């Protein structure tokens, strides 16, 4: 049994690891390091209710302060870890302090991908990842203002929905030929494109920002298709894993911290969980099953597995991935990981604003994308986990209840 555990990264995964370690009986010294000034918080509402101003900041916090006291966890905020000395089992902090560890968990998450174009550093060019980003962005949500959103993924579209509801003039630039290309099938992309247009969003597909112009602050976005006037810009073009501390310490890193199916890194005393990991996923059927996921589900479930592994009781990671996005009154819920080449089985009519798209591989459901369709999502998720062969005719017939398919 190890006597001290240090966790670098106080997000969803780090906090889950604290809870799981104590629940699983760890009685040693426990330290959680976070480099932000805020107590650990949930990020999903940032681009939704928190941006809209419907959600007080304290509601974002994952746990009350008393949780960390009760868990006898030393939560250290504003604390940046710089380097891990694996031989000495020491974490070196920015303030020159060194913390010793028996086992180390890296839950360092991801950060926004910066846009490498001229004018990217002009005031008025925003990103969205943390509380401070949203606090800077929100004052711009004033009816009549013009916002150009670069990137039609989850973040860009969620912000577009909030901005459109606040009466802004919204333009979304998406470099690909459809929105949310990495996350959903063409049918779902098409539906969301129409919904945004219906809400007055000016959607430009196959359009990228070439550069930003302005004097004291950003005033326009230049694209191949022309120039767009902007009072402010939001860039949402994905994230990159925070794997530098792992790489600099000599751990294997490849688009994330490489871990095995038990969340172990290439060092037997170091583990990793959440957005920062490149991990083998049972539900990802290519690239040798290795994938990096950006999700609450993966953060929570991997952290639970990491806690067990650190306590010497490793358990194979095999959890169905799930995701969600809120835009307007639409709830998009996704389970599983689709791949090109999967058989597509739509269920229901998108015009009813309630439908689903199933992906099948060898007769089994590999993924489901459900729009305002919880039965399809929840039963689909169960069928993915069970790996059962399903009747595709029944699946595609909305008259046949999902329950009878399960």
């Amino acid at each position: 049994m190890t006597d001290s555990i240090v966790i670098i990264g106080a997000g969803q995964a780090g906090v889950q690891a604290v809870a799981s370690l104590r629940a699983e009986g760890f009685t040693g010294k426990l330290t959680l390091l976070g480099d932000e000034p805020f107590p650990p918080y949930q990020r999903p509402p940032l681009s939704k209710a928190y941006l809209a101003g419907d959600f007080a900041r304290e509601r974002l916090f994952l746990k009350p302060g008393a949780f960390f006291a009760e868990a006898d966890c030393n939560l250290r905020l504003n604390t940046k870890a710089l380097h891990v000395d694996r031989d000495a089992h020491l974490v070196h902090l920015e303030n020159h302090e060194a913390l010793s560890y028996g086992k180390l968990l890296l839950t360092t998450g991801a950060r926004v991908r910066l846009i490498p174009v001229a004018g990217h550093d002009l005031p008025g060019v925003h990103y969205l990842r943390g509380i401070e980003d949203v606090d800077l962005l929100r004052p711009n949500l004033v009816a009549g203002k013009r916002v150009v959103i670069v990137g039609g993924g989850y973040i860009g579209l969620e912000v577009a929905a909030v901005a459109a509801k606040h009466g802004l003039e919204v333009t979304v630039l998406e470099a690909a030929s459809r929105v949310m290309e990495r996350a959903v099938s063409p049918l779902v992309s098409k539906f969301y494109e129409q919904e945004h247009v219906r809400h007055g969003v000016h959607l430009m597909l196959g359009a990228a920002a070439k550069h930003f112009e302005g004097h004291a602050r950003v005033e326009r976005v230049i694209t191949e298709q022309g120039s767009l006037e902007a009072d402010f810009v939001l860039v949402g073009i994905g994230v990159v894993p925070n794997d530098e501390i792992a790489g600099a310490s000599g751990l294997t890193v490849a688009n994330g911290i490489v871990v095995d199916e038990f969340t172990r890194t290439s060092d037997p005393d170091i583990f990793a969980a959440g957005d920062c990991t490149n991990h083998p996923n049972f539900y990802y059927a290519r690239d040798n099953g290795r994938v990096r996921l950006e999700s609450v589900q993966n953060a929570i479930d991997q952290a639970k597995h990491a806690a067990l592994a650190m306590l010497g009781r490793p358990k194979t990671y095999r959890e169905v991935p799930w995701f969600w996005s809120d835009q307007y009154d639409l709830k998009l819920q996704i389970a599983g990981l689709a791949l090109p080449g999967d058989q597509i089985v739509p269920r229901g009519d998108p015009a009813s604003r309630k439908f689903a798209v199933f992906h099948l591989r060898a007769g089994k459901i590999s993924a489901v994308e459900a729009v305002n369709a919880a039965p399809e999502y929840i039963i689909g998720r169960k069928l993915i986990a069970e790996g059962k062969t399903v009747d595709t005719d029944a699946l595609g017939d909305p008259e046949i209840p999902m329950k009878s398919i399960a």
Partner: protein
Amino acid sequence: MPKITYIEHNGKEHAVEVPAGWTVMEGAVKNRVPGIDADCGGACACATCHVYVDPAWKEKIPARTEMEESMLDFALDVKPESRLSCQIKVKPELNGLIVRTPKSQH
């Protein structure tokens, strides 16, 4: 502030004050009431905040939406008084509400 009593599966009671506008789930999580995981943080995406609402309070709480109804299909030991606590908004009329947590959320 409305007072809500959470009763754990083992009978342990937690009487706490929860601000109006918050959800019953948040009241539990912020007060360290065990037995409510709420992995998704209240997005009605995970079905891990299942509770049993005391029958005396059933009429005072708006009925389940279709979404909640479906998500509950995924929960264990579902009963007529089952609810997802992230879908119950706290309001002054719910002062005194009693909910019980199930044996497990998974």
